């Protein structure tokens, strides 16, 4: 009877445990955005270090969320303009990506290694959602899963206007680098 109960118990608990290991997350992911024009002495770049990211290794669902105000610039004035004039962060506080790892099946989450993947989904910046597909990397190792990618975001795609006055100091396409190290999500 006792063994039966234990068996029954472990059977019931099993799905919930595997579930926990299916989901990985971080609240301290990093995103860098760089819109420096080639040859311009003025670096237009911001770093974010409190990006929220969740990955479901079973379904391949991958989601990111970043508070726009969290981007930190070397120049305080640039940060102010980024929020006030370009991203309008009071109106559009969050930037989000909701998508899936297309070739999730090819990633062996149980084995350490770096896996090249394609990621597809909806990117919302400045209140404008755009479907994007990009190359990325899933790195499994040390009991953690890292999601990495570098891709380009044309500012015009998200209705971010560049005044003619600063056109030579600001790239029309921003380079975005994502680096999030995820830990198991326990519920």
């Amino acid at each position: 009877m006792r063994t039966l109960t234990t068996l029954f118990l472990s059977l019931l608990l099993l799905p919930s445990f595997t579930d926990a290991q299916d989901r990985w997350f971080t609240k301290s992911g990093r995103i860098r955005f760089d819109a420096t024009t080639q040859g311009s002495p003025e670096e237009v770049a911001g770093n974010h270090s409190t990006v929220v990211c969740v990955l479901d290794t079973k379904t391949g669902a991958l989601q990111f969320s970043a508070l726009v105000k969290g981007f930190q610039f070397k120049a305080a004035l640039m940060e102010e303009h980024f929020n006030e004039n370009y991203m309008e962060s009071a109106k559009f506080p969050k930037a989000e990506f909701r998508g899936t790892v297309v070739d999730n099946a090819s990633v062996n989450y149980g084995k350490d290694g770096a896996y090249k993947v394609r990621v597809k989904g909806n990117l919302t910046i400045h209140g404008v959602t755009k479907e994007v597909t990009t190359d990325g990397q899933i790195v499994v190792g040390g009991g953690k899963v890292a999601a990495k990618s570098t891709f380009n975001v044309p500012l015009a795609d998200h209705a971010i206007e560049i005044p003619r006055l600063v056109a030579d100091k600001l790239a029309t396409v921003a380079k975005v680098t994502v680096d999030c190290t995820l830990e198991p999500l326990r519920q």
Partner: protein
Amino acid sequence: MHSPQRLSAFILFLAISSSVCAQQTDDLLSLVEKDAKQQKEYVKSAFKSSRVINGHSMEFLAPGLMDFRILHRFGLINQGYSNFFGLDQASMRMGFDFGITRNLMLGVGRSTYRKEVDGFVKYAPIQQSVEGGSPVTVALVAGVTLNTLPWANPSIRNYFSSRLAYYYQAIVGRKFNEAFTLQVAPTLVHNNLVPLASQPNDVVALGIGGRYKVTKRIALTWDYHHLFNGIVAGQNTHPLSLGMDIETGGHVFQLHVSNAVGMNERAFVTETTGKWTNGDIRFGFNLSRVFQLGKRKSAEKAW
């Protein structure tokens, strides 16, 4: 957990919760974001500059920033074409402001008007925050001005203290929305020496300043100081300025028309002579250029 009943209830709960969770795959972010702590966030960019027009605003320079300010006040517009509507004459102030912390800044300047040197400290014990915190910013300003003109009458015994004046302000301001900001600023100006016996040494005034953003980079501004005492008939009046802030990348231009010529609190509160009703107004501008002096540690982290 010791009774079998409670155990089975617990198991049932786990089984249900896991299956429920498995179905909520479309919004993974909500799983971790719901318990995210809301950090206290202070309201920023209530004004484009640390001055409304003449008076201090509730806005502070970010730490590590230096604001190089060049101010011009031209002659009276009603002088007409012979003086090119006042532009032939200019009075100026050149100043440097420094952001020390989020709520502390200081500055120095020098005006051609009375060859005056001035300095101030501005500190906000209370700052308006986005949610839950204070609905207003309270900023305190203390400043001193030093007149460096030669003594008017060198034959009498003159005291250095006669060159000094002080001003104190308590700014209470609120950014109501992205476009509209309003502040009131009770002000006390103390002149150690006044030219006429009929003039008080202490002048009490109430500043009322605000801005309305027309576009992302252009705002309309107004700056009025109402004097409760110290107005001598035919001598001085309340200063009123109406302006427009234009932001162009690294610069903020504050263009305005005003009846005041002074560019520090002592001068524009107690020595504004022009009357709007007589058309005694002048064109003027503040040019603000901000430089990053200190490094921002948080943004310098290696990538």
